[in-house]
């Protein structure tokens, strides 16, 4: 199964895709290596949050996605 990684909102444009499937287990370094440099730069910033298995991770550098987990990369939400 691996780990399904979703690019939400404008990050999908930057990634050139809505999702990728990566090998499990997946940690923060693994994620940064697997995405393109533009996305990686955004991920390193404060404004992009990461959810794993339906929960936003307080410290995204502690990502530890297991086989079957869904990881969502969440850019800042849009204003009104």
């Amino acid at each position, binding site marked *: 199964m691996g780990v399904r990684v979703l690019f939400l*909102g404008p990050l999908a444009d930057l990634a050139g895709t809505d999702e990728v499937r990566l090998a499990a287990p997946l940690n923060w370094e693994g994620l940064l290596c697997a995405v393109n440099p533009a996305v990686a730069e955004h991920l390193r910033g404060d404004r992009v949050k990461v959810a794993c298995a339906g929960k936003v991770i307080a410290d995204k550098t502690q990502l530890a996605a297991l086989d079957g987990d869904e990881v969502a990369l969440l850019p800042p*939400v*849009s204003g009104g």
Partner: protein
Amino acid sequence: MKWLFFRRLAGVSAMREVRVLGHAFSPTTMLEDFSRLYGAAGGIASFLGQVRAGTAQALELLHYEPLTLPGMEALADQALERFSLHGVLAIHRTGHLSPGEPIVLVAAAAPHRREALQAVDFLMDHLKSAAWFWKRELRADGWHWIEPRKQDISDIARWA
């Protein structure tokens, strides 16, 4: 439809109704049902947000489903904790919308009007900035993402 009951007002259970809808809805029908439930409430405040007419030909609202509904439910619970309410309603659209279409409807029923109005203000401030929605507009030259606004962050800070 999912109803949760909270013991808030003496002898009355406060309720919340929260929905994320991928299709068009009628705000007046929703409000009518809500008003009927709280016929003896004293007051009902509401806010309806619609797609503004302007340069955009269409609006697309994307969300991350596993977070959106739980996030909105948690927000409704916060409103019920914070204000003395009979009940709250929060409906948010996703998908493609045309100018004039309803995006968001929030309502609060309360014994006192200030509580009802404040709860609606609180819910709107937090929904707009804290819920997991991303918007893009279709203009003459294609799709454009809508950036987060500083105003939204200062709106939330009012409630800290």
